[in-house]
């Protein structure tokens, strides 16, 4: 789609970002020691820290990714909301208080409190870095997505802007300002999402045959399945058209190509209506010819009015044949949609005989009852399959989301910004309340976007900002600015976690480099710049993937690498130093390796066919999390008693295990 920059939107956007940065510089001036830089002196009030949890956690993935997935596929995106929130229960009930009690700066401190082993610091430091960088990718992708409709910048420029801004924030400020920025944007995000949700209820549904640009998608027929040009010309609107003979993969595809008198090729999907007849429905296409992007059979334009893809997302039939539903309530919103029909736009890539690959987006009228049930997204289809193996991907993801939250380094370090365990507990409860409320809203936002008539068929990540734009320009600017600061905040939290890992775990504890307080902060700042630069590059590489899906992977790595050690240290006295080190490394490398060998990475990143992938399904959690636990237990049992490092009185006594 062609996005026109709006000056009002840009002004609001920059004002918002400037205020955020101003606050961060102002507060950052107050934190000079390393204790202040990494942990905000442990003096953040618990309520502020709790909302900052929401700010940290409700990243681009939640806002952009989940809304986008719901907008394109229905209920399935909400599974992520449920899983992300459930993870907080693990964090609160199992991890929060011991983390606060045992550690000082990083989660490696907590793991290592019993052993004082440089090896553990090294392993935990590396895993913190790996998880943070993995988690940074979707944030950066999200940043690129945001600036596109708002400022009409290319994706890479958005990524670079975010990278640069965040590096400035982190280098000048540290944990105090990061926390206040997170508090601010966490509150605003929840507030504005609530406003948007109420507006969605008030708007209700309206039946249409196209999006907000006024284009009505055509349909025609019935016509015989193997229509000739002669038959086609008998259809109204096709008097001057001819059928393009199918070649290459077009021969087996459920599409017909027609060429009109102006020579423009249109693609139509065939919908079987029985007796060898089909109904033709207008599809949309994207292809690259001679290095230029073509849309719907014409070179893509650069300004409004030029050829471009039509926005989508509309209700095609309402219950009882009404044209408008009028305003709806929180429950009638669902019950009305349940009885309606929405046009979804799945895609299929087809290679012609000339080697040109065409991505066809075609209409799929879908009953509301299907949209509101799990299992419509291609990745979740497995749950409707009879084969148990197909269900594993789903189970694996839900397990990783459940276990992942409590193992995310940038969430864990937030426990060190409050003064004691009860503050850690209270801020987690505040966090759960704000995050839970927001996740309830995601379902409305996603379905509201699905029926807003403003979706970009090629990019699900843009659903939430485009939904706001369909309401009004001001709201769009505010939502985009909040989402942008969301990315800024989450990214700075992640970079701080990585910088802390490099400074405390790798340099100071493992390499035993003596550093003054001042030097520690400087090393951390250098580390921030390096990690930030890596994140920018990866953000550009992973452009086309749904950000929530990418975050699912980060959760898998975090849960596989960190959770086994974290939990076992708290509940099993027999854990040894070697057990912890191997468990972290095995969990991290097995989950990372699995992801790199999975079908989704093959198609999304390397551009290879999915069949070549080595991993049997895409989400590693169900294999690698138990593997981490098993490794820890086996290695601990093998090394028990041999290790002179395990000197605590309980661990010397196997009876207590």
């Amino acid at each position, binding site marked *: 789609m062609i996005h026109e920059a709006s000056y009002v939107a840009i002004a609001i956007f920059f004002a918002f970002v400037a205020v955020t940065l101003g606050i961060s510089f102002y507060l950052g001036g107050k934190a000079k020691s390393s204790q202040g830089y990494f942990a905000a002196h442990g003096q953040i009030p618990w309520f502020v820290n709790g909302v900052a949890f929401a700010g940290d956690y409700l990243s681009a993935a939640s806002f952009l990714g989940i809304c986008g997935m719901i907008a394109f596929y229905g209920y399935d995106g909400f599974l992520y909301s449920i899983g992300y929130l459930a993870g907080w229960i693990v964090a609160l009930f*199992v991890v929060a*208080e*011991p983390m606060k009690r045992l550690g000082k700066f990083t989660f490696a401190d907590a793991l290592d409190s019993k052993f004082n082993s440089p090896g553990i610091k090294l392993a935990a430091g590396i895993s913190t870095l790996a998880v943070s960088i993995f988690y940074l990718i979707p944030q950066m992708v999200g940043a690129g997505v945001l600036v596109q409709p708002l400022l009409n910048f290319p994706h890479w420029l958005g990524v670079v802007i975010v990278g640069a801004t965040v590096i400035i924030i982190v280098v000048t400020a540290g944990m105090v300002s990061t926390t206040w920025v997170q508090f601010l944007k966490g509150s605003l995000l929840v507030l504005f999402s609530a406003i948007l949700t109420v507006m969605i209820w008030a708007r209700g549904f309206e039946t249409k045959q196209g999006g907000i640009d006024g284009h009505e998608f055509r349909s025609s027929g019935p016509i015989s399945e193997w229509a000739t040009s002669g038959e086609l010309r008998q259809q109204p609107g096709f008097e001057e058209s001819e059928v393009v003979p199918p070649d290459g993969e077009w021969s087996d595809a459920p599409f017909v190509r027609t060429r009109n008198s102006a020579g423009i090729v249109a693609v139509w999907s065939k919908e079987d209506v029985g007796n060898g007849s089909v109904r033709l429905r207008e599809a949309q296409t994207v292809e690259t010819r001679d290095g230029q992007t073509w849309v719907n059979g014409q070179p893509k334009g650069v300004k409004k009015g030029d050829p471009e893809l039509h926005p989508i997302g509309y209700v095609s039939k309402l219950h009882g044949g009404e044209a408008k539903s009028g305003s709806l309530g929180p429950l*009638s919103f*669902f019950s009305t949609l349940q009885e309606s029909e929405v046009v979804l736009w799945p895609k299929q890539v087809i290679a012609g005989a000339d080697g040109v690959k065409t991505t066809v987006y075609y209409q799929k009228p879908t009953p509301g009852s299907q949209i509101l049930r*799990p299992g419509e997204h291609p990745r979740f289809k497995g*749950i409707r399959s009879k084969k148990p193996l197909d269900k594993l991907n789903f189970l694996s993801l839900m397990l990783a989301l459940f276990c992942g939250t409590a193992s995310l380094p940038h969430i864990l370090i937030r426990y060190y910004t409050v003064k004691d*365990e009860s503050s850690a*507990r209270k801020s987690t409860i505040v966090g759960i309340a704000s995050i839970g409320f927001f996740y309830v809203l995601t*379902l409305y936002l996603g379905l509201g976007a699905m029926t807003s008539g403003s979706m970009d068929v090629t990019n699900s990540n843009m659903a939430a900002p485009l939904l706001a734009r369909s309401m009004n320009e001001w709201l769009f600017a505010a939502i985009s600015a909040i989402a942008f600061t969301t990315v800024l905040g989450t990214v700075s939290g992640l970079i701080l976690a990585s910088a802390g890992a490099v400074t405390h775990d790798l340099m100071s504890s493992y390499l035993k480099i003596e550093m003054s307080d001042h030097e520690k902060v400087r090393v951390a700042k250098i580390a921030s710049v390096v990690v930030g630069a890596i994140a920018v590059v990866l953000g550009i590489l992973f452009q086309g993937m749904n950000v929530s899906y990418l975050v699912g992977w980060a959760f898998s790595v975090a849960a596989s690498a960190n959770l086994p050690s974290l939990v076992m240290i708290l509940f099993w006295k027999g854990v040894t130093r070697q057990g912890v080190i191997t468990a972290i490394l095995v969990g991290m490398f097995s989950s990372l390796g699995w992801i790199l060998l999975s079908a989704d990475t093959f198609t999304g990143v390397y551009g290879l066919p999915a069949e070549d992938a080595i991993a049997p399904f895409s989400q590693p959690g169900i294999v690698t999390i138990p593997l981490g636990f098993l490794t820890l237990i086996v290695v601990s049992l093998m090394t028990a008693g041999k290790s002179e490092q395990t000197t605590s009185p309980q661990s010397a006594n196997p009876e207590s295990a």
Partner: protein
Amino acid sequence: MDTRNARIGLVLFAVYLLLYGGFVFLNAFAADVMETTPIAGVNLAILYGFGLIIAALVLALLYGFLCKPTDEEITARGGKK
């Protein structure tokens, strides 16, 4: 170690694990059940999903009320055990 708080945490955790596990396994092995519309024309998938979010909050609040400050914290505030 404050075993009382830890014990409460584990019990509540087990309760939530059952609820969440029930949701995940219903989705995976009886997806059709999720399509039924028991209340106000809203299907079970949505009701159960919202229920899980509300349950998380209720359990979290319950935990907050049941937990007592640890000994060190009471000492730190100058109070008596």
